[in-house]
């Protein structure tokens, strides 16, 4: 059976940089419910990262994603001065020196990726959705998190990708190929949205139109969570759904604010924040000795 929800795993490292010239080598490992990322920084600059699907065993997933980030760099785990574990499985990162919540890490990571003017970060993860407000240093000033309900999460989008037999990576683009916006399906429950979509397909709606109706339902759902905490500019989106242009563009239209773009992959914000925390903690540790 084809697995339409399955996205490609990937890694990257900066071949131009020799980590041996660096002083502070730190890492953040974000073990999410669906995907895991490991991010390595050298002296406060992004050096390497990897992004994989989380397996059923969190410690094993943490190890695998870290090993993959290290691959081909000549670095070993022992060379890394401080590791912060974050995400849903943060307490299950066997080699971490400290666990920090993904809320704090996403704020810190977004501050690095999008600059200190970021005040609101929306993180749309695989099984949750978070709204984080932060100050110019990336410190959290308010947050709300929804991990109780699949509506507004990546998991909900996977259900639709499977239903329509469309690769999860193509969903966003395809949803924009409509002449006009259809009314959204139910935004409160993925199960009910799915039965509505099934009925619409039977009525002869093209897949693009069904996806448009779901993407706007999802955008609307997320906006209600944003409103719970309040939106302040600048605004940025992190997490896997940040890559879904169908949801992002509709969300931007609804709130009337464009989300900041970054050259850095939006899915590594949590791990990146972890690596930044690790850097401060390592400095503190070194100066204490």
């Amino acid at each position, binding site marked *: 059976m084809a697995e339409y929800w399955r996205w490609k795993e990937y890694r990257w490292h900066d071949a131009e940089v020799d980590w041996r010239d660096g002083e502070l080598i730190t890492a953040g490992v974000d073990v999410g419910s669906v995907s895991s990322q490991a991010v390595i920084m050298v002296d406060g600059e992004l050096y390497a990262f990897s992004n994989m699907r989380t397996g*059923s065993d969190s410690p094993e997933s943490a190890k695998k994603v870290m090993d993959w980030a290290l691959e081909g760099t000549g670095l070993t785990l022992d060379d890394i001065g401080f590791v912060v574990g974050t995400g849903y499985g943060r307490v299950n990162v066997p080699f971490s020196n400290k666990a920090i919540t993904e809320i704090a890490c996403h704020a810190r990571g977004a501050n690095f990726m999008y600059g200190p003017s970021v005040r609101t970060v929306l993180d749309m993860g695989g*099984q949750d959705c978070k709204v984080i407000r932060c100050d110019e240093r990336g410190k959290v000033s308010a947050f709300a998190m929804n991990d*109780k*309900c*699949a509506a507004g999460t990546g*998991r*909900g989008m996977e*259900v639709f990708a499977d239903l329509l037999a469309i690769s999860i990576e193509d969903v966003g683009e395809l949803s924009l190929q409509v002449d006009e916006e259809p009314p959204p399906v*139910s935004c*409160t*429950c*993925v*199960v*009910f949205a799915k*039965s509505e979509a099934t*009925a619409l397909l*039977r*009525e002869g709606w093209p897949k693009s139109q069904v996806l448009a109706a779901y993407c706007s339902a999802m955008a609307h759902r997320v906006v209600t969570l944003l409103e719970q905490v309040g939106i302040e500019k600048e605004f940025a989106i992190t997490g896997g759904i940040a890559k879904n242009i169908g949801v992002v563009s509709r969300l931007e239209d609804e709130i009337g604010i464009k989300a900041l773009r970054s050259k850095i992959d939006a899915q590594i914000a949590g791990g990146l924040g972890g690596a930044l925390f690790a850097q401060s903690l390592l400095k503190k540790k070194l100066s204490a000795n």
Partner: protein
Amino acid sequence: MITAGIDMGAKTIKVVVVRDGAMVGKAIMVAGFDSREAAEQAYAAALDDAGITKDEVEYVVATGAGRSHAPHSKRDISDVASGAQGVVTLYPAARTVIDVGAEEGRAIRCTAEGKVLDFALNEKCAAGAGAFTEAMSRALEVDIQALGPMSLNSENAIPMNAQCAVFAESEVVSLLHAKTPKEDIARAVHDAIASRIVSLARKVGFEPDVVLIGGVAHNVGFVDSLERALECKVIVPDDPEYIGAYGAALAAAAR
């Protein structure tokens, strides 16, 4: 006097024909693509079942989520009102009605006359309705009819952590991978939905007798979980899914 009640549910349409307070004919149809057409068919089938012609029916009242689209109906009443009316007519001692359908769950507290005193709803979320057990039966690869009897054979109460039907599906799959007996998972599924329904019942301040109606009342596993969570006996009528339509037909007669 002959009247009819049409219950335009989210998933199925039920029609009941009543003569002098007694149910004399009934029919059920899947709502499907065209719910009005399905209602027409169910209406014809119920009349046929009762051996009555269209002209003999004096008045028709509709209920259910899609009640405004019901054919033949001259008036409509809420699901809460029709459920309470149907139940107290069958069980005069009933004071609490729990109604669990495909997409909604409700708890209703009512008087001996069927007047609604208080009600609480679980809507727009599959976790507190029949859609939850259906999704779980698919994840377990067990027929929905078999899910209830299966859970009665469970010897271990295991918790279900997910509150959402979509997340619960993944949880069921992981439990299966961990070789958890299907019986125990089935019971966990029923305990989970029962706990949500009980919180509705607590909200209205339930008192006995408690009568359970709606399609999910056929699920013996759910009934068992509900009785354990409520710590009281729950009465299930013979045709639990028809009680709303029956109540509507009674309301048509009382007009």
